[in-house]
């Protein structure tokens, strides 16, 4: 009928519930569809910004070195650098530095090499110890100690020895700062590490800086040295998006070309036109490469999860199409009787769905952009992100239209004319296909082909890993529904009546009930799956971080260092030997030695974590002729180790996680005193050559770090567990799991809406029956209670099934997924029972409210009208 086509675009306005349902579905599907690329972009930008922060904006920016320039034109060059920065988008105010090599004069330490430095903002990025005038000359405490100088005294500077000490200049010392060698290396000094600390620990440190204003430095240069060195650092802004960073990198390359060749104004103004030329340096490419590699590792996860979310959303859209047919059964029957083709009906449903899907998709895109702005780092949302979101959101809306049309087409009546083998195939439970697919996916996963490995060795799940719970939950939920309804059909009677009604309705539920159970099971399964992966990752990461850092702070120290008594917090010194020990079989073993008592005070271990080493530490202090050792779980049973070529008998007193150990390497923890004694008995050096000394401390990291840094242990490379737990790969994985949880919650809401529709349609179809039953004595409370109970049972059943299967699979998957493979111990699986039980309880209560609402809404219908119309 032509009139049906003409009316189709606005027809669903006559069915407000269907209209609203399609808007909601299109909205949520658009959120899922648009969020994936947008989240991807957000993670790209977030990862880049993390890299920029890790490298520091100055290192990631452009550094221009002008090795030699006349001091008279120093100011001009510095001003030129500031002008260049203004012309480059994505860089902040440049840090300009002028320096010249000098030598200390005087009698105390003549010939001490120093570097006179005028660097913008330098005094703000050192630890000032004594003194006051920031506009004066500041020397390092190591220089002050060496020259026995203090603020107010005069420092005599001469030309370096190789210039022949022809002139000198005295400058008044305004203050003393903590030497950068011991205070290295904050982001401000990230391009100067080679100038601050000698890469070889046995060599003396490079000359310390004498910080002074530019005018003072020019005065010094005028007296001592006609040419100065400039370094201009153009910091990259930390809010760069990946696209912005790529553009900036290109700009840096162009700038480099201008500076190195030709006769460009920049080259001239920066002083690069001379014989020595200039050099440039930037770590932006590295930051980009690291960020891209990191995103590549989580990219499959995001896309796959989005695909899964999309599949579930579309499955619900298909269900909406089925509801559309049920809700309009009279119309559909008329069309069927009059010989309408399924394709024509489906096409018209698609046309009917265009309006709500468009509205929903628009709302969804706006919601995803808002979500991204909320969750992603600042600056992640740019015009390209928005246009990508719109494109994907539109595609999501289109898919909802197609899915609704497909669902409606599938539910369109058939005349049941099929005979022969095809009929038998159709009678086979569809769940068997899903179960078979789940078995295949499981086999794929167990064979190791379900995981991808990135360049760092970290494993990331592939399609199989994420499809497995979906497919398994779908099949299991379908089969369980089939079995459950069959069991309920056997219930002959039940009391009270509301219970009988609820059980009979559940027993008579067919495709719609199965769809509701499957939808809810999959939605809750996604939530449970992501929650389990997330909880496991957080636990594994924390455990790895504390095992790696031994406590709250770790620093590298001289292995022979001693003296920890003065610290107001627990401190343990340990030696980690990764090269001198092996089992008798020849298999290498890491030997970690420390004072067991100090270690027991220092180690931090979470409640309930397995393999707690602290409970075994007292055993190491026992008297024995043999070396008592705690072994890591992957260490073989052995009664001796070969240490520095000498066989030392050992007794393994227990197995636990060994602090300071590495993933993939067995480790032994022994008492340092016992090892020292053993070494002495066997005439081998202690500590052994090549051993690494570490200090582990327990306490508030900021306080501990400050105290350790100021101590005579002179620790370097101070680090905390936070540096590991906040690593970009962990953050990216957690972010993607959080995203899945949000999708799971959104889908749960969606399935509740679908349940509401289903129950409402069902209750509307029983409007007269229910009205009659109420006249017969069925109370309103019983009427509502029956539907609420039914909905709650459906949700509970689906939640237990979906959550159980998903959590089970997640536990198996966790062991194969490791975001920090370089750290020991291996990943652990943790099921967040509290979260899951609370989530299920909330879902069950919500479902019962939905059931009650469906009954209530249906009761508001005009029964007289229904009776009149027949």
């Amino acid at each position, binding site marked *: *009928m*032509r*009139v*049906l086509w003409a*009316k189709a675009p606005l*027809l669903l306005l*006559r069915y407000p519930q269907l209209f609203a349902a399609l808007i909601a579905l299109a909205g949520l599907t658009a959120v899922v569809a648009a969020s994936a690329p947008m989240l991807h972009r957000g993670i790209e930008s977030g990862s880049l910004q993390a890299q920029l922060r890790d490298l520091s904006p100055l290192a990631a920016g452009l550094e221009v070195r002008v090795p030699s320039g006349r001091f008279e034109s120093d100011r001009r060059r510095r001003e030129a650098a500031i002008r260049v920065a203004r012309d480059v988008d994505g860089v902040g105010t440049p840090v300009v530095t002028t320096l010249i090599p000098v030598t200390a004069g005087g009698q105390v330490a003549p010939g001490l090499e120093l570097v006179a430095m005028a660097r913008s903002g330098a005094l703000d990025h050192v630890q000032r110890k004594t003194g006051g005038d920031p506009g004066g000359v500041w020397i390092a405490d190591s220089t002050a100690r060496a020259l026995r100088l203090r603020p107010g005294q005069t420092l005599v500077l001469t030309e370096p020895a190789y210039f022949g000490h022809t002139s000198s200049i005295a400058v008044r010392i305004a203050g003393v700062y903590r030497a950068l060698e011991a205070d290295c290396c904050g982001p401000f000094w990230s391009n100067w590490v080679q100038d601050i600390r000698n890469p070889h620990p046995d060599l003396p440190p490079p000359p310390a800086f004498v910080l002074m204003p530019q005018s003072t430095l020019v005065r010094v240069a005028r007296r001592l040295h006609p040419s100065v060195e400039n370094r201009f650092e153009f910091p990259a802004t930390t809010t760069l998006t990946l696209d912005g960073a790529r553009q900036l990198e290109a700009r840096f390359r162009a700038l480099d070309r201008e500076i190195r060749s030709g006769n460009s104004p920049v080259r001239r103004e920066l002083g690069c036109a001379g014989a020595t030329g200039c050099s440039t340096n930037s770590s932006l490419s590295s930051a980009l490469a690291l960020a891209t590699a990191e995103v590549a590792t989580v990219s499959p996860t995001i896309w796959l999860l989005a695909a899964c979310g999309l599949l579930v959303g579309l499955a619900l859209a298909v269900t909406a199409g089925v509801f559309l047919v049920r809700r*309009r059964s*009279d*119309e559909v*029957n*008329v*069309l*069927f*009787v*009059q*010989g*309408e*083709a399924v394709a024509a009906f489906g096409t018209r449903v698609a046309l009917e769905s265009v309006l709500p899907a468009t509205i929903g998709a628009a709302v969804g895109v706006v919601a995803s952009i808002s979500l991204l702005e909320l969750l992603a780092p600042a600056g992640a949302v740019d015009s390209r992100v928005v246009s990508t979101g719109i494109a994907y959101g539109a595609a999501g809306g289109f898919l909802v239209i197609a899915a609704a049309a497909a669902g409606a087409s599938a539910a369109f*009546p058939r*005349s*049941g*004319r099929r*005979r022969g083998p095809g009929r038998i195939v159709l009678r086979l439970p569809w769940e068997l296909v899903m179960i078979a697919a789940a078995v295949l996916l499981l086999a794929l996963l167990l064979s190791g082909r379900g995981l991808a490995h990135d360049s760092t060795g970290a494993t990331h799940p592939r399609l199989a890993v994420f499809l497995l719970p979906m497919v398994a939950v779908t099949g299991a939920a379908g089969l369980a529904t089939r079995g459950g309804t069959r069991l309920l*059909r056997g219930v002959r009677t039940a009391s009270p*009546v509301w219970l*009988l*009604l609820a059980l*009979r*309705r559940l*027993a*008579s539920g067919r495709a719609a009930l199965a769809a509701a159970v499957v939808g809810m099971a999959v939605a809750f399964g996604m939530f449970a799956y992501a929650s389990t992966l997330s909880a496991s990752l957080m636990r594994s990461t924390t455990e790895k971080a504390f095992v790696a850092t031994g406590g709250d702070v770790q620093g590298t120290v001289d292995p022979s260092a001693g003296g920890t008594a003065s610290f107001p917090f627990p401190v343990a010194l340990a030696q980690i030997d990764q090269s001198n020990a092996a089992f008798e079989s020849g298999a290498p073993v890491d030997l970690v030695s420390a004072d067991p008592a100090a270690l027991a005070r220092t180690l931090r271990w979470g409640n309930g974590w397995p393999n707690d080493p602290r409970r075994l530490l007292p055993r190491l202090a026992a008297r024995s002729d043999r070396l008592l050792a705690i072994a890591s779980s992957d260490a073989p049973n052995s009664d001796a180790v070969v240490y520095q070529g000498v066989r030392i008998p050992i007794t393994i007193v227990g197995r636990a996680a060994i602090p300071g150990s590495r993933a993939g390497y067995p480790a032994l923890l022994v008492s340092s005193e016992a090892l020292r004694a053993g070494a002495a008995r066997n005439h081998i050096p202690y500590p052994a050559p090549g051993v690494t000394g570490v200090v582990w401390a327990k306490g508030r990291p900021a306080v501990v770090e400050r105290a350790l840094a100021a101590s005579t242990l002179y620790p370097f490379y101070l680090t905390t567990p936070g540096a590991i737990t906040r690593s970009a790969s962990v953050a990216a994985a957690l972010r993607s799991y959080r995203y899945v949880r949000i999708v799971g919650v959104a889908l749960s809401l969606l399935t509740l809406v679908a349940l509401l529709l289903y129950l409402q349609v069902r209750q509307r179809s*029983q409007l*007269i*029956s229910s*009205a*009659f*039953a109420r*006249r*017969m*004595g*069925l109370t309103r409370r019983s009427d509502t209670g029956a539907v609420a109970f039914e909905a709650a049972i459906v949700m509970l059943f689906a939640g237990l099934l979906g959550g159980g299967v998903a959590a089970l699979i997640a536990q198996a998957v966790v062991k194969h997924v490791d975001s920090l493979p370089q750290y020991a111990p291996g990943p652990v699986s943790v099921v967040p029972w509290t979260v899951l039980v609370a989530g299920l309880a909330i879902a069950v209560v919500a479902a019962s409210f939905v059931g009650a609402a469906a009954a209530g809404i249906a009761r508001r219908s005009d*029964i*007289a*009208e*229904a*009776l*009149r*119309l*027949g």
Partner: protein
Amino acid sequence: MADRTGIVCRAVSRVYRSPSGSVEALHALNLSLRPGALHALVGPSGCGKSSLLRLLAGLDAPDAGSIMVGGIDVESLRGSEVRRFRRETVSYLAQRPAANLIPHLTLREHLEGSAARLAVAEEIGIAHRLDARAGEMSGGEQARAAIAIGIARETSFVLVDEPTAELDRRTATRVIDALARATADGRTVVVATHDPDVIRVAAQTVELATRVAEHPRFERRARETRAPAIVLDRVSKSYGPATVVDEVSLELQPGELGVLVGRSGSGKSTALMLAGGWLSPDSGVARVPGGSASAPPAWARTSYLSQRFGLLPELSVAENIALPLRLTGADQGGRVAELMDALSLTDLGERLPAETSVGQQQRAALARALVQHPEALIADEPTSHQDARSAELVWSALVAACERGTACLIATHEERAPFADRVWRISDGRIQEP
């Protein structure tokens, strides 16, 4: 449009399978219907009339046998062929009038506006409702609209299920005439019916198997006059500008059987709904046992049988009948079995309502209405889906209820009401003077 081969069925069987068992609707049926004539399919409810029509229309497939319609082997049709067959060869009209109408289209839109088609509406007496949608029509109007649409489609075969079940005699006659006239064009019309008037004009009547037990008739006894159980006192009801019930007054004493006779759209269903407390009158007073101005009557005192039976689809027939007793905690005793036997439902007790015919569902709904021995029963067209023998069972059950003291107010379009103590004729919402 004209067909020269008619309909031939050979050894057609159809079995419906469900979780509660199998129901054989048709067993090795042989049938030959000549073309260009009106044929009546008769038989008790549940004998397979509706199933046969669906098979003939290509909506369902037989489990065995062959069906030729207009020379087409219906069973051999596949995909687009069967759709073309349904689109161009047969028109099928379902038993429930509303099921033949697309709710959001007006009758004019259904007929797609051509003059010839609109003339059919005129012929059947529904032309005044051309711009109404299904929801805006009465049950009788819906039935006429459906017939008009079926005839207007100009297919060679018109298959109609109980077309006059909900029509008054005058309207039914117009419909029957229209169906008979359709055969003049060479069309073949097959009507599943209990209506003797249809049977009378049919060129051929096919009686499907009957399995109804004989039941004794109840004789009416003389009653003493008591206070009325059902009272409608100058009751009026309007829908917008249309007054559907206009100052209707009637009284029915306990044990009396009163019949409200009127054609489709005359206001009788609305009057019953006012009496049953489903609608509030705009003016006047409606009083039934257990009812008050603020609360509708309890089922135990005033039960109701509507044209939509309101059986709970998840409960079996027996459970549906016993539901009022169960909800009030009353002892079921042998009352359920007694009524099922009286209404020939004994074999259907374990079936779900959807597994029974419409007529059987109607009898089950009547049994449920009578199971608590109510003081009053209000029933709208209780025999509309019954064949003659089953209708007799229904009337017997109603008479038996009256004998026990129930006041039964029945709406029907049947002119004959042999058991009635009182008869009111209603037209345009007003009770006609005798």
